[in-house]
């Protein structure tokens, strides 16, 4: 049983109000380590067995069309285990 992880982040040039809000909350709480924060999404997809080549292509396609919005986001697909 493989786990596919798709990480979706806003493109760097796109405004990220959520990340900004976290970024400005941290120092108010006394955490000074961060110079910038971006917030994105993480999908954990379980599947039976390891992905075949054609399944990998499908996953890529799903990541591009459904899980992310290419107008404002980028994605990375990772296979765990």
């Amino acid at each position, binding site marked *: 049983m493989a786990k596919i992880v798709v990480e979706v982040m806003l493109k760097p040039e796109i405004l990220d109000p959520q990340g900004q*809000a976290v970024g400005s*909350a941290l120092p108010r709480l006394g955490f000074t380590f961060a110079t910038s924060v971006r917030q994105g999404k993480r999908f954990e997809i379980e599947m039976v067995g390891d992905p075949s080549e054609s399944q990998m292509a499908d996953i890529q396609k799903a990541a591009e069309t459904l899980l992310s919005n290419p107008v404002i986001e980028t994605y990375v697909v990772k296979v765990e285990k």
Partner: protein
Amino acid sequence: MRIGVVTFPGSLDDRDAARAIEHAGGTAVSLWHGSDNLKEVEAVVLPGGFSYGDYLRCGAIARFAPIMSSIIIAAEHGFPVLGICNGFQVLCEAHLLPGALTRNQGLHFLCRDQRLRIENNSTMWTNGFSLNQEVVIPLKNGEGSFQCDDETLKTLESGGQVIARYLGEDPNGSRDLIAGISNARGNVVGLMPHPEHAIDTLTGPSNDGLTFFTSVLHQLVGRA
């Protein structure tokens, strides 16, 4: 009777909560998130809205506001606190109430006139209702699904801490159709629907919501 209404950046229904307090016969006092001064109020309402944009998680950033440190201490000593919608979320994030409010099951913001049953009329904020009274109060939120683990749910149910439950079609996937809860002591109440928008039939679907505010005023008068 002075009742405070906290304004966080992004609070929206703060003026409405103040109006409801005044309608009920109290004096509404505006409290600023950035100060820890409770201005000698005798109860506090955390209003609805999108504090800090509700980015990250609803209420997650607001709970660290200076005013909250005073409210947390006061609440632990029995001070009455009502959290409405975003205020409920803040109370959960602050661990004054158990559980958490998560994304509506339907994934949409939902605004509708919601039927509820009042299941505990002994809290500071619900003593004016009759037990099992049915009321209609506007519900409006995107993250109103009450979630907690089984253990907590058992405690809430057996301890009579479920103060209101949704009737009719499930609006958001809350566990056991929970619309509002209180702490064990009954001074801290969180409610997803907006009683401040049900204070007259001109601007709301009913005036059922007013009872939350008259309840606490009554309680405070009785105690004084």
